[in-house]
């Protein structure tokens, strides 16, 4: 395949699926800068191997898998800031948009504070809706480890903001 043609196709893919992949990257990191780094590195790897990836039939799935794998390799490498327990502002009354936004920001910060593997488990179990077995298979670990990571992650989110998850109103468009 001609190199220019190769990158033209990749460019089209990246532009079309960029927003969806960006959402995945943010859910895996909880942080805009980290999400950008994670996604960019995954896309570079994809671009380098574009012919082979494309022949696999699902480049988007490939990029998502690379991002999850990258999280695994970050396991020992990152330091994590603790989230102040007072980060969740007291409700001043009502369920206005500003309050909901503040809660989401706090939830994102709490998510970013989790170790990468816990974020990966949350993503696969509760965003991708994979079973524990499928999650374990993707992460190359045991089902028990998946359970432990999910438990620890949710416990951390609860510590960061008691009732944080429950206090957010479900979106009206959520099925």
């Amino acid at each position, binding site marked *: 395949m001609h190199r220019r043609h190769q990158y033209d196709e990749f460019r089209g893919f990246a532009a079309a699926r*960029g927003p969806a992949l960006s959402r995945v990257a943010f859910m895996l990191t909880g942080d805009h800068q980290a999400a950008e780094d994670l996604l960019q590195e995954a896309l570079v790897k994809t671009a380098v191997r574009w012919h082979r990836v494309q022949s696999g039939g699902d480049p988007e799935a490939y990029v998502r898998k690379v991002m999850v794998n990258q999280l695994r390799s970050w396991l020992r490498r990152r330091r994590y800031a603790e989230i102040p327990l007072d980060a969740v502002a007291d409700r001043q009354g009502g369920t206005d948009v500003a309050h909901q936004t503040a809660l989401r920001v706090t939830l994102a910060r709490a998510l970013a504070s989790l170790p990468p593997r816990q974020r990966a488990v949350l993503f696969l179990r509760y965003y991708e809706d994979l079973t524990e077995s499928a999650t374990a298979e993707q992460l190359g670990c045991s089902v028990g480890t998946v359970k432990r990571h999910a438990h620890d992650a949710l416990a951390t989110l609860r510590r960061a903001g008691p009732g944080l998850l429950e206090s957010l109103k479900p979106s009206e468009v959520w099925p």
Partner: protein
Amino acid sequence: MNDQTMIPYRELDAEARNYVDPERVIALAKRRRSAAAAVAVVPVVLAGLVGAVVVLGPGAAHTPSVPAGEGARPSAATEAGALRPPGRSTALPAGPVGRAAYAYTPCRDACDGVFVVLTDGRQFVLPAPADGGPPVHSITMSRDGRWLGYQSHGRYMVRSLTDVRVHAVKSAATDAVFPVAWSSDSGRLLLQRTDSDTNAAYTVLEVGSGLATQLTAPAGTKAFGILPDGTVLFRNENSTGPVVAWSTSAGQTVTIDVTAQLDGESVRSVNLAPDNQSVYVVAARSVEGQDSRELTAVIHADFTGKVLGRYEIPKMDLENQFCDVLGPTADGFALSCRNGSGSMTTLLAVSAAGPQPGIKISAQDWPNHPELAEIVIPG
């Protein structure tokens, strides 16, 4: 937690921006391709590598010799100990190639490869599956540099670098296999067959014969070392107190107290020394405001509890320095230290002679997050 309460988590994706810049990605991809294809333009840093081998040598009896092999060339940058990319990315060939000095991945997520550096300075990249190279944490080398272990397609491969022997360790589908430690004589490799912290199962591989023996850690313990006769050492996995205790698969128990050597620190890890009669206890202090611990000192103590030395981990003029344990060397301990501003990873050997910086992976030669480089040393 029921599905309903996870809705706020799912809806966090609405906070995402669009992080994709196709032109930047393509530019980086082109640069990476051209770097991989370049013919030997950048010489290997002989002195830097030799320095690393000398620092990391696994003991006089087992220290690999350091001949000026055909792949090693002098470099103008040797005085800094800087590790530079290989001129070309050559896959590790089958069969005998020579002993390994260390392995590394120079930046985030394997950076298109995990490199194995031989004692003569030649570098080879390990075979990479489609979604990236083998996890660097799965890489291991025997103390004498003769054996290399790595994950490959669901199996753990242990191959000789000096002859044609290869062992493959299989595990259950949901298990991962990771190396724990080598015996000091390089005859046995201790592998953990699951990454679960409970019911940890282990395999002891005798590399000479290929014989594999399975064992399970006592409840609440994890293995941290293996003796040349195959005896495995277990210690309480959550213990951070000053009384360090461990048991062996042969029924022996050992307890040492390092209270007097600690200065408000907790015990981070315990590592068997190559003499098989002493341990290195890594001390750490909690970092205020962060869910992290800063390594501060390494305490050397023999099995009778006698403290042989406390070696401070020096600040290396790295902003937000953070060090990881690599393991014991011939006469001390090796650490991998990086700075938080994203420009460098440095190998640091600590011994009674004082701290000695080894190889350095910096932004000058490795622009893609060198602070996330990983180094693996023999043993």
